């Protein structure tokens, strides 16, 4: 299932909604989307991954790399599915990001 | 069946079967199925043999020896079928009691056999005896067989010896010794590897003849410490090894334990010399106990005044009458016994000058005892070493009747070495004689006559010699009155232990200087146990009565003073490696006929030595005699700088033209203060600066490559 990337800006919050499979191949396009979003210096970068069924380590590295390049930005994952949460744990990245559910947390 | 015709009894008493015995040998000896007892007494009117079961207060039987068994003055009886391991024996003599004529027979006493080879009663060291027992020191029958496996005395040449004086108990009694049988012959045997490591090849044991550690024992009024006869210079039986020194003494096996020690020492190339005390016995004066001699033949065994009192040339109450033919014979028999039966390599005679006094105490020109010892066939290869003075004022260092055989404890070496090491003015000339082996004293006898020592069991330890100005003998309970006041010691600036690193460094250096002086002098060096790692007696110079840590070797010093140990070991190894410092001949100080002198004394400028009293610097070159016929050998340049400032020495080139190398330099820290010839660093210049109060030894010769 291909990946769809949808970016939007809400105040100090940049939102990237992803749907489909984030694999090594699609990681490069996500990297660009993230670079664009961060160019506006948002306080938050929210990744809506509710409809992402699989997220590769490459995809995750994009996010981590982004955080490293712009330490000030807070990164949030919205509604990650179990396998994604698992990846976040394994890569030791979970304690570096915020995870939010419906309430917007 | 036994075919000896004397193997049957002629008499019977209370179930004991016996017959006339053989007058010789004296003492108790196993013959076939019997035991032969033979004892001398010139004035007794009757003698009976008293047998006990081991340790029993009352006799098993008392056999009156029939008059017809006496031949001359000797009573002899053979008793058959005795359980020899289970019995003790003694004699009861009847005879006149007339002290003013020197007769002190006492029928109420049972006395020990002067020839007893085993004595019981003090089987375990310091085990409180039963004082109610009226026969304290009992004779026992011994086994005289032993499997020597081909051993015999080593017969090292006297000049090759490095002697090590030790006390059987003190050497391993301390818990830190780590041996399985502390304070015994077996304990010493466990330390043989240590002695090998140190490099000594002869041990001299303080008295090991049976004595009573309880003699004059008391407790210290303040400390409550038990004080007794620890050193053991007070003999009960001249033929019996001290049972309490054997871990198996309680089984009566001390003979085997001691012989095993001797066998193993020999197997490791170590000779064993016994400190023997023939000048007096444990019976003391008229107030003393009657143990043996007094009750057997008082006027024969002791020197008595015309009115029957005891002469006291020994300072111990009585004086053994060594030049009476009977006593002389006992002494000779005794030494023959130890040499033949125990393979003992030599003897050191305590207060030996007494052995040269006649029966009235007058010094003899030609003392029969000393002569007969010197020419005895069995003792002919034994070392005979005299403590050449006595407590009666006789001082014979250098003049002891030697018969070409006797060596001497060189008290003058001790005195002048101590004076020189503490930089006392005016000692330079004498120390020059001492390093040559004391030709001034022994010109006709050679350096091997001189047993050189700086410390001995009696007096300060080496460490204390440089830590105390005064003796500190309060622990002896005699108000610090006992012990010598003339110690030639120096505390280096603080009396006793100090944290001052400078003082401690100086003390260590002085100890090293002492070791070089001792081990590089011609003659026979003697160390005392523990000095090689700085054993202290806390300033006590007379620990004769202390069976405690004051007198024991504390082996933890081997770790804490490893530096002095390593240095001493080096010096001993060097002495072994360099014949030039242990020549059997005095070095010739005169050159002439184109040949060089064996020894040349030099000034710091390389010229003639300065002998003025103010000078405390001694330098000399010593070379092997081979140079006399032009054959190069070892050559040493020895520089003693006892001055408090460093000294500049101009070096002249060695005879063989090869460069000087540094063998010893006590200014240097551990590990580089002494070298074996092959590691010796080459000297860079034509002069050498010796540090304050230091010794430097340089060497040249083929041995270096």
């Amino acid at each position, binding site marked *: 299932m291909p990946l769809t990337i949808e970016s939007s800006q809400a105040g100090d919050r940049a939102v990237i909604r992803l749907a489909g499979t984030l694999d090594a191949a699609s990681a490069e396009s996500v990297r660009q989307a993230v670079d664009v979003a961060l160019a506006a210096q948002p306080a938050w970068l929210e990744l809506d991954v509710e409809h992402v069924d699989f997220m590769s380590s490459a995809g995750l590295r994009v996010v981590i*790399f982004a955080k490293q390049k712009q330490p000030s930005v807070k990164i949030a994952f919205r509604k990650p599915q179990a396998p994604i949460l698992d990846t976040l744990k394994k890569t030791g990245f979970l304690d570096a990001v915020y995870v939010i559910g419906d309430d917007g947390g | 069946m036994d075919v000896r015709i004397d193997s049957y009894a002629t008499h019977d008493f209370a179930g004991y079967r016996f017959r006339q015995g053989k007058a010789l040998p004296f003492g108790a000896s196993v013959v076939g199925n019997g035991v032969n007892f033979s004892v001398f007494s010139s004035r007794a009117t009757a003698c009976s043999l008293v047998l006990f079961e081991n340790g029993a207060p009352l006799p098993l039987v008392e056999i009156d020896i029939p008059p017809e068994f006496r031949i001359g003055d000797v009573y002899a009886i053979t008793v058959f079928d005795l359980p020899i391991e289970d019995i003790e024996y003694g004699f009861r003599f009847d005879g006149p009691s007339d002290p003013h004529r020197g007769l002190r027979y006492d029928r109420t006493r049972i006395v020990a056999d002067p020839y007893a080879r085993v004595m019981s009663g003090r089987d375990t060291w310091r085990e409180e005896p039963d004082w109610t027992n009226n026969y304290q020191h009992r004779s026992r029958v011994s086994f005289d067989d032993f499997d020597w496996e081909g051993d015999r005395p080593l017969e090292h040449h006297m000049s090759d010896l490095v002697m090590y004086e030790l006390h059987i108990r003190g050497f391993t009694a301390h818990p830190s010794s780590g041996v399985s049988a502390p304070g015994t012959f077996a304990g010493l045997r466990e330390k043989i590897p240590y002695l090998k490591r140190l490099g000594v090849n002869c041990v001299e044991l303080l008295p090991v003849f049976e004595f009573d550690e309880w003699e004059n024992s008391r407790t210290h009024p303040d400390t409550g410490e038990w004080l007794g006869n620890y050193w053991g210079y007070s003999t009960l039986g001249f033929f019996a090894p001290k049972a309490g020194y054997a871990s198996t003494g309680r089984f009566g096996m001390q003979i085997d334990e001691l012989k095993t020690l001797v066998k193993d020492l020999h197997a490791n190339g170590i000779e064993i010399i016994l400190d023997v005390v023939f000048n007096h016995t444990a019976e003391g004066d008229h107030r003393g106990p009657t143990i043996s001699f007094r009750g057997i033949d008082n006027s024969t065994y002791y020197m008595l005044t015309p009115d029957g009192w005891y002469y006291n040339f020994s300072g111990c109450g009585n004086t053994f009458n060594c030049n009476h033919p009977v006593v002389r014979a006992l002494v000779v028999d005794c030494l023959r016994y130890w040499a033949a039966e125990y393979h003992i390599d030599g003897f050191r005679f305590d207060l030996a000058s007494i052995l040269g006094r006649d029966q009235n105490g007058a010094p003899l020109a030609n003392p029969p005892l000393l002569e007969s010892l010197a020419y005895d066939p069995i003792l002919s290869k034994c070392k005979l070493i005299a403590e050449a003075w006595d407590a009666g004022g006789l001082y014979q260092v250098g003049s002891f009747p030697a018969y070409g055989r006797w060596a001497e404890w060189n008290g003058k070496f001790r005195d002048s070495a101590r004076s020189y090491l503490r930089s006392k003015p005016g000692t330079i000339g004498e120390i020059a004689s001492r390093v040559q082996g004391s030709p001034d004293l022994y010109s006709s006898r050679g350096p091997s006559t001189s047993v050189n020592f700086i410390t001995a069991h009696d007096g300060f330890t080496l460490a204390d010699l440089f830590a105390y100005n005064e003796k500190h003998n309060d622990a002896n309970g005699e108000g610090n009155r006992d012990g010598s006041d003339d110690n030639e010691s120096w505390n280096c600036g603080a009396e006793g232990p100090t944290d001052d690193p400078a003082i401690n460094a100086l003390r260590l250096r002085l100890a090293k200087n002492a070791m070089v002086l001792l081990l590089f002098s011609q003659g026979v060096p003697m160390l005392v146990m523990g000095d090689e790692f700085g054993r202290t007696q806390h300033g006590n110079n007379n620990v004769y009565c202390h069976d405690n840590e004051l007198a024991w070797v504390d082996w933890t010093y081997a770790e804490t003073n490893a530096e002095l140990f390593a240095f001493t070991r080096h010096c001993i190894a060097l002495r072994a490696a360099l014949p030039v410092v242990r020549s059997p001949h005095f070095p010739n100080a005169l050159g002439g006929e184109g040949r060089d002198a064996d020894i040349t004394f030099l000034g710091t400028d390389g010229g003639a030595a300065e002998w003025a009293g103010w000078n405390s610097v001694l330098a000399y070159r010593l070379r092997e005699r081979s140079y006399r016929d032009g054959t190069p050998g070892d050559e040493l340049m020895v520089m003693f700088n006892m001055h408090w400032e460093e000294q500049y020495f101009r070096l002249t080139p060695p005879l063989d033209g090869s460069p000087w190398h540094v063998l010893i330099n006590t200014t240097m820290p551990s590990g580089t203060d002494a070298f074996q010839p092959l590691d010796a660093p080459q000297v860079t210049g034509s002069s050498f600066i010796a540090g304050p109060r230091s010794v430097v030894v340089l060497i040249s010769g083929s041995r270096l490559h």
Partner: protein
Amino acid sequence: MQIEYPYSDTIAGYVQSFDSARMIAVVRTAAGRDVPVTITPSTYAKITVNLGESYRDATSMVPSLLANLDQCVFAYGTFYPKGSEATFEAQFLIFPGTSPGRFRHEEPAWWIEQARSIATSYVGWQFDHPAIPIDYRNYRTYLQLGGTKKGDFLQETDTISRLVYGMSAAYMLTGEDAFLDASEIGTRYLRDHMRFVDDDNDVTYWYHGIRVEGDRETKLLTSEFGDDLQSLPMYEQIYALAGPTMTYRLTGDPEILHDIEQTVKLFEKFFRDESGGGYFSHIDPITLDPRAASLGNNRARKNWNSVGDHAPAYLINLFLATGEARYAEFLEETFDTIVRYFPDEANSPFVNERFHEDWSHDQSWGWQQNRAVVGHNLKIAWNLLRMQSLKTKPEYVATARKLGDTMPAAGSDLQRFGWYDVVERTPAPGTNTYRFVWHDRKAWWQQEQAILAYAILHGTQGDERYLRLGREAAAFYNAFFLDHDDGAVYFNVLANGMPYLLGNERFKGSHSMSAYHSIELCFLSAVYTNLLITRQPMVFHFKPYPGGFPDNILRVAPDLLPPGSIRIDAAWLDDEPYAAFDADALTVTLPADGVRHRVKVKIAPTTWLQDTPA
């Protein structure tokens, strides 16, 4: 030009003669120059002391010491011009030992005690041990000269891993529990905070580090170092394994082994150049591609670190711990690649360190250009001879000896002893000196390479020249690098030995320091000196987990040493004598009793020298 003003410098060499009347000693330097050194009444002298030892004055021994032919000495003093000559007056002397051929750093316990002291300093500085329990949350990369923290909140993977290595090595030498705790807790901390388990690729790699902000921490995926920005440098991944691998040697913790194996997979999958051989120095953080354009001048490159550093950093230790053939092959391939591509004798005595994909030389890269890191050359010689003990190949020995023979003239200080840092690979036109690139300072880790290289050169090749060179390097290091005031060692000293304490080089902790090289030096110097040179037995400590090592076999070989040169002399389990060991295989069979035991082994050279006097 003739120098007409007084200037001060250090002379190092060997006493040839001493005139004690004029107090002038002639000292021959490593260059063979004879320098008359005048001893004045105010000249003082000291003996080299170890960390933790008190000052040892030698002023009173000076005449005795200078009286020894070939006595080694450092003289710091002043040249006073005098006509066309100059007289050199010593201000102070340092004696590395108190007789010729006797060096304090060859005393059996020297390097062991130095390791103990350095490790103790670092557990104190980083974790306030023993006041509070060891917690790597308190670890900081930067430490001031005195060990105080600089206040940054950066924690770097490779630096923590280096500290862990130091602690493990210190434990193996001393058996001090604090050091084992520090290494185990550190290894766990790396796993919990620095590890990136990549399931899609079935590999593990390690973050560059983290920036700690309260309970949250920012993961730093790519290197923050100027040389390697925005990439995953091989060098950091390699060093991430240095500590855990050494810890594994002690504990046999299977979790550690798993992390190592997964990381080695990363090397094989993404760094290895299947076609050209060797390993790339950098890969792109997202695509893990060594040829990604984003890598800039690090694109498709190979260098010493990526190709060679495997061996000393973790691979030799991994083989020692596991004895697995595949790691032996990995090592062999590594050294074959080195001897094949690095030497460049046609152009320079120094190896070439940076390569393009096709092994053509890259001499335009960043600061390196056509320059040599002296220590890397010595490091290659040292490690080739370790490898030689595992698999003998003439080219290993030849390359090692060649470097050992040419380096002194090219990279060492023949006037004062000690080794330089970075020099041009070719001499300045018309001269035969290899110019210093930035300065003539001497870095601690380069001294380490020299000391180890010549120790093992002598220990395995038995050539006296190598012994002398090793001693000179160690004498210089121990005389000038030990920080007797604050503990541990200085980063840099000036050519004359005086510590250089400015900028980054004031630090006791930094991304390159952190008790790694200094304790590695102690560990291997102790091993080479005692077991190969002075032939003294040594004791090593381990604390394996029950069932940790396969078949309960604990491998105790301290390093790759010539086969048959050492054997186990005795072993203890919780200080009780223990017999279940194979002396020659250097293995201990652990009891399968489910208990964690302290294991102590005494390893002795097969030719035992009796203690003197012989």
